[in-house]
């Protein structure tokens, strides 16, 4: 499952479109503002590659876009987070999390000091995001939350968080720009953002039983590679970051218990007792 996540990250950071992705580790809600894979100008339709060498097609068979195009609005994003969706919304479009879920939120696109741009017409501010997370906390919709953002001045988006158990990573500090990785002259645009590219590379090495912790994640894409300085915020998180495994958020590990006891059933007892 985390392989899917990697692909998603790669896909989402292509072409600077605003997508957001929320997972509660086992269920992914993907919001893509624009569909690059099926765009008329894509020379290889239904594919999106992370590198010029066209090795990894990140828009594979198991990518399922839940909110696409005009459905990606600030309002829908906040509705998914807080759970205030109309009753007709199907399961795949909901964030069905409870107080036991670890949630990973990844956002990328164009942003600035304190906001992230949606669809060229609206923006989400860091205050709204912090309020939404507080409402999630009040209603026990998450156990721990990891927030990754790859935009210009990304660190401003996590400055206003005030709910417990949130850890945040950003690709650049306030006043810095996040840069993209490499252009592809065949298409004419850049393929991926730097921070996401190196994050993908890092995650490729993580397997389900890996013991890498969050401190390793903080070291991804230093200034020499990223040109911008990635930042992180852990003061709201209750556990020590070096005891938090990457697979807590990126893995697909469930808590299981062995069934020790069984019931005794009588197959010959055909009468149903009256209540």
């Amino acid at each position, binding site marked *: 499952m985390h392989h899917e996540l990697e692909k998603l990250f790669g896909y989402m950071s292509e072409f600077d479109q605003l997508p957001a992705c929320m997972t509660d580790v086992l269920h992914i809600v993907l919001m893509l503002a624009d569909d690059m894979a099926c765009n008329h100008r894509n020379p290889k339709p239904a594919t999106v590659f992370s590198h010029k060498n066209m090795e990894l097609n990140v828009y594979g068979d198991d990518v399922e876009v839940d909110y696409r195009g005009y459905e990606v609005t600030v309002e829908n994003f906040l509705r998914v987070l807080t759970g205030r969706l109309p009753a007709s919304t*199907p*399961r795949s479009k909901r964030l069905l999390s409870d107080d036991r879920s670890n949630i990973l939120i990844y956002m990328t696109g164009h942003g600035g000091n304190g906001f992230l741009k949606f669809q060229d017409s609206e923006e989400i501010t860091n205050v709204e995001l912090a309020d939404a997370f507080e409402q999630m906390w009040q209603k026990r919709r998450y156990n721990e939350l990891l927030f990754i953002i790859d935009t210009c001045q990304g660190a401003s988006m996590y400055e206003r968080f005030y709910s417990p158990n949130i850890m945040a990573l950003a690709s650049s500090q306030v006043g810095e720009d996040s840069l993209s990785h490499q252009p592809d002259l065949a298409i004419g645009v850049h393929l991926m953002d730097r921070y996401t590219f190196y994050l993908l590379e890092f995650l490729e090495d993580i397997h389900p039983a890996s013991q890498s912790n969050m401190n390793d994640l903080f070291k991804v894409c230093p200034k020499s590679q990223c040109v911008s300085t990635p930042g992180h915020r852990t003061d709201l998180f209750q556990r020590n970051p070096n005891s938090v495994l990457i697979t807590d958020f990126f893995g697909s590990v469930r808590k299981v218990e062995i069934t020790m006891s069984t019931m005794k*059933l009588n197959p010959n007892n055909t009468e149903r007792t009256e209540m």
Partner: protein
Amino acid sequence: MKGGSKSKVPVSIWCGHQLLEVLQCISSSWTGPDLSVLAVRCYPTLPPRYLQVPGHFWGMALALTLRSNRSQTCSIPLTINTKSITPEKQRGKYAALSIAAMVIVVGLPLWWKTTETYRASLPYSQISELDTLQLQLTMEVDVIFTKGTLTAEQQNKVPMSQTQENYYKMNDKTGLRYRYEMKYRTATVMEDSALRMESVQEADVSLSQLNESPSGSLVIYVIPETSGLLPDGINVYMGIYRTAILRTSLHKEAKMEELLSVIGPKILRIIQTVTFTNNDIKASMSDRVPTGKFTKESLADSMRAFKSSYEITFSLLNPDPKSHDLHWDIEEAVDKYIQPFLDKLSGVANFSVDSQILYYAILGVTPRYDKTISSYTLSAESLPHVINPVEARLGSNAASSNPVLNFLLYVPDYPHCPLYIKDQNGATVQSNAFHSPRWGGIMVYNVNEKYLDNNRFPVQVNIDTVRVMEVFLAQLRLLLGVQLAYVPDDFLMESPANQGLTDWELDRFLWLRTLENIATATTTLTSLAQLLDEIGNIVIYDKIASQVYNAVISVQAAIAELEAGNLGFAFQSSKEAILASEKAFFDPSLLHLLYFPDDQKFAIYIPLFLPMSVPILLSLLKIAKEFRERRNMAKKKD
């Protein structure tokens, strides 16, 4: 004219006519045709006092110097006569004043009212009262002394009743009082004969027929130490209804009060085991515990998270259809073994059951071959990774967002038969099954006894549903939080068998769920009230307000019913409370209008209001200034 005579031409007009007056002044002092005006000097000055006319207040003096070295001074007081101010200026003043008045008196309140968000009133005070919970749980306990336990002297004191109260303070805001209303009496003849039956199970059935114990109550029969009804080592037997049998020795010489103090703790122990302990309460009301550290939860707690409707799905996984042709009569099995359990819980939640068969569904983990038992094994560490690859293929009802409980039966493929699950210590698990809280359970079913004729594939297999349902029912009970986590050694709990659920288990479930519902509903209401208070521009429709009122009333009703000891009603009220509060909290209309920072508010209002308000303000200022100056003038005159 000779000399410096002054001619005064009082002018009571402003500007425009100055020239005319100058000419008049000149012409009045015209002496001869050879005179011409050399220079005209203007002195802005006040005319001398004798020239001043009330109502005129500033003037201008003109000094005309005539060519013939004579200077002629005309003093032309150019003044404003406010008394005879022209009607136009007056109108202008009134217009400015009335516009300003209109804006302030009508416009401002209108703007305020139309940009207000509609907020229906909410019972904030009652909700804040609910923040502190002091609950009382009343339980009726009948203690019946059978023949041979009490002496005649002691028997004279019964029947009697006694109330025992314990207080548990969970935190500053939550406290619970347990009130046990104990009624002591001796057994009737019929009860005594029932207790002399062959087996304790038969005794239990006939005793329960004699006593109709309502929901939430408990009946304890005390039998003497010498009785052989219970096996050795067992002191307490708990039947499938609400009856317990306690075997204890009672001192013959003791007074009734001493007796009660001896037997009291034992009775309390029974009550706590079959209803709830402080820890159970704490776990179920954990919603009210403030954000603290998340410690390792106990088994009972980790299964919790009760909702009001569930979907239960039974899936048969066949990774190898070429080798195994599987048949299972799931419909009959569900009807016989699962449905009675669900029916007993029908007042508590809605359940919908379905089933499916999945072909070519594999576990995501490769089993290892263990030579010592010559079979394949799944280690305990690999179990957490099994569920996810399978889950994607399970499917669910897309339209509903009810929680789903999945029960998977996996028949291993022929190359990996037989397959056993090992626990942390390396021993094989007898049930060959494991479960995951809030998700469901997986059982591995080995068909190894069927491989008689190796060449005839696929092998027909009829799944033994009894064996399977024993495991699934146990897992279902664990997942719903019905199963007791810990049973003391000297207790014997009768299994409910095909009924699925004993009456006291149902009672216990209702107690804990009622408390959980009350806790969750109160925290939901409190946080909703806080949210709506903080964010001023969320619209509150009437239907949300009515849901909130409903929720508050239901919570209060539930608390009252708990105090009265009516468990069934208390649960129903608490269920209504939680449904109403969740509905209110998660209503789609409660999304606050997107955040408006102050600078954006200014940016919106300034282009609208500034061009209009500047002239109004300036004219008001001018009027005020003139008014003040006139007043100063009037004062100076006095």
